């Protein structure tokens, strides 16, 4: 694609127009106030150490860096099932269907995988031990002397701990996370907890991505008296997929139990679906993958027209023409006669012209748009693009006819040059 400076200047104008010239007046007023307030604040003179201190400092730094490098990636020893199973860093671990599997690390730390649990010990070094939980539950008893960072990753979440005992339960199928801390403290990181959510002993966090519920409960201490019957925390089940269900009874129990909302959770606004968030961030290919993981057919049949438009844009921008076509056709099918449907007709024309390289279909879609919305906002562009598509498809007579219509209706229009060319073919 050869592009001249004029084309980039037009792009620059479009971007500049979209951006505007700066923040709103309220922000500028605040900037002005801050400039005035800090205008002549004294700047502290930096202290400079004597040369001998600098030399010693450098030597100490070099020694520290060398020591750090030496320690950085030393492997940490561990055994699986008391040595009965192979222990390989990076290897997958699968607990048998009816019994747990223990991973014992040096210094006495233990990870116990519940029956049927699967995951990967992605890293096991003196710097960090990372366990990626695919499905099931893992209980950890950390006896670290602070050398390693111990973490369990589950879906989009990460639980980080030192010197603690906790259980992480994750159901990939149900998109349900449960973190219960029996001793010490962990930090839960993930897209819902931007700066990390601390969880201390006696607390349990649950995240249900399907119903978009996030809640925090207290759990009784191990040596506390047996809880009174009633709406207490449900028991942890052996088979995560079958029993880790955010059933209505469980949800009701959670509400009436001693549930305390952490300030960070108190917002409980609806979480945006991942694919929408990825769209907003411009990660179109990833958004599409996420939407497909959610179930594209279901989305096509149940999502709102706005969501489908967003999905169609993501597919177009990710160059997934076939998916974009499906989504645009779903909009037309489910919302006939609406402005969104008519825009989809136009976009199907562009899609076939620009990505699917089918000028015949493109010409037909533009023609259909002009029938559906002859005075619509995209009519001029549809007619202009139809001229181009007809020429590409070697339908020269149709191109001429469209060109003559264009020149009559839109003198001086953006496709005038093209139309004049086509009229003379």
């Amino acid at each position: 694609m050869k592009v001249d400076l004029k084309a980039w200047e037009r792009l620059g104008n479009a971007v500049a127009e979209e951006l505007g010239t700066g923040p709103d007046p309220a922000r500028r007023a605040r900037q002005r106030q801050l400039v005035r307030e800090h205008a002549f604040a004294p700047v502290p003179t930096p202290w400079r150490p004597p040369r001998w201190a600098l030399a010693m400092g450098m030597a100490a730094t070099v020694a520290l860096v060398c020591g750090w490098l030496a320690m950085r990636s030393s492997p940490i020893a561990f055994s699986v099932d008391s040595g009965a199973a192979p222990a390989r860093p990076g290897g997958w671990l699968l607990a048998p269907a009816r019994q747990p599997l223990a991973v014992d690390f040096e210094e006495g730390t233990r990870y116990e995988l519940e029956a049927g649990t699967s995951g990967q010990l992605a890293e096991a070094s003196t710097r960090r031990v990372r366990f990626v939980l695919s499905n099931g539950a893992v209980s950890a008893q950390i006896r670290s002397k602070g050398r390693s960072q111990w973490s369990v990753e589950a879906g989009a979440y990460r639980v980080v701990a030192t010197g603690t005992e906790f259980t992480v339960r994750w159901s990939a199928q149900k998109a349900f996370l449960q973190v219960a801390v029996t001793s010490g403290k962990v930090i839960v990181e993930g897209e819902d907890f931007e700066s990390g959510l601390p969880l201390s002993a006696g607390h349990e966090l649950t995240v249900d991505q399907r119903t978009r519920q996030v809640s925090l409960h207290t759990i009784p201490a191990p040596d506390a008296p047996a809880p009174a019957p009633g709406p207490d925390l449900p028991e942890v089940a052996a088979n995560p997929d079958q029993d880790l269900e955010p059933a209505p009874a469980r949800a009701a129990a959670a509400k009436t139990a001693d549930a305390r909302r952490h300030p960070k959770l108190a917002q409980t606004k609806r979480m945006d679906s991942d694919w929408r968030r990825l769209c907003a961030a411009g990660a179109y290919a990833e958004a599409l993958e996420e939407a497909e993981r959610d179930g594209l057919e279901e989305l096509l049949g149940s999502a709102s027209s706005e969501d489908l438009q967003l999905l169609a844009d993501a597919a177009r921008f990710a160059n997934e023409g076939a998916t974009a076509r499906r989504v645009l056709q779903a909009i037309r099918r489910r919302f006939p006669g609406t402005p969104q449907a008519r825009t989809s007709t136009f976009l199907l024309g562009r899609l076939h012209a620009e990505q699917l390289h089918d000028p015949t279909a493109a010409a037909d879609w533009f023609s259909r748009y002009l029938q559906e919305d002859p005075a619509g906002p995209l009519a001029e562009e549809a007619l202009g693009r139809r001229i181009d598509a007809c020429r590409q498809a070697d339908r020269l007579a149709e191109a001429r006819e469209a060109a003559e219509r264009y020149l009559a209706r839109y003198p001086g229009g953006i496709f005038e040059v093209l139309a004049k060319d086509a009229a003379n073919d």
Partner: protein
Amino acid sequence: MLVPAPGCGEGESPYSIVDGLHRGDPNAASALFDRAGERVNRLVWRMLGADPEHDDLVHQVFVDALANVHKLRDPESLDRWIVSITLNIVRKELRTRRLRRLLRLDVEDADAPSPELDPERHMLARRFYSLLEQLSADEQIAFTLRLLEGCALAEVAAACECSLATAKRRLSRALASFTRLAQVDPVLSCWIASRRHEG
């Protein structure tokens, strides 16, 4: 125009502002902001694409200006001097971000603050900046001054404090790199293709 012609600037004269700043008068700081604030905001806003750290960077421009006003010999060149400080701050920021990206220390920000007046143009602007950040800091600045601010080559050279030949070289490299990147970008290549018939 990046810098107004002498005598055409807004508000107080540069002489009284500089004189007030030498005397440590806070009103002079406000007057400096009134004179240069819009220009600084616009430059930072467009160089970095309505960045979340915009206000901090604008503030830094004025902090640097106030700290170094004693080095300004000719008050007539106040406006050009502020532009130069602004571009230096932006350049430093772009280089730091590039290094953070190389070292994978950067965290991608999910939301751009600019409003979604037109979803397709919003996407266009986002793609524009995501490609722009793959250029060097000097190329980004030259490219943005030329394309978004509409500066002539001589203005770009003056603002970047380099020779005309250097400015031309940076711009050529920026154009070549950006064109190459845009060819494989679906949003920008579609946009260009859809406008190839415009004269």
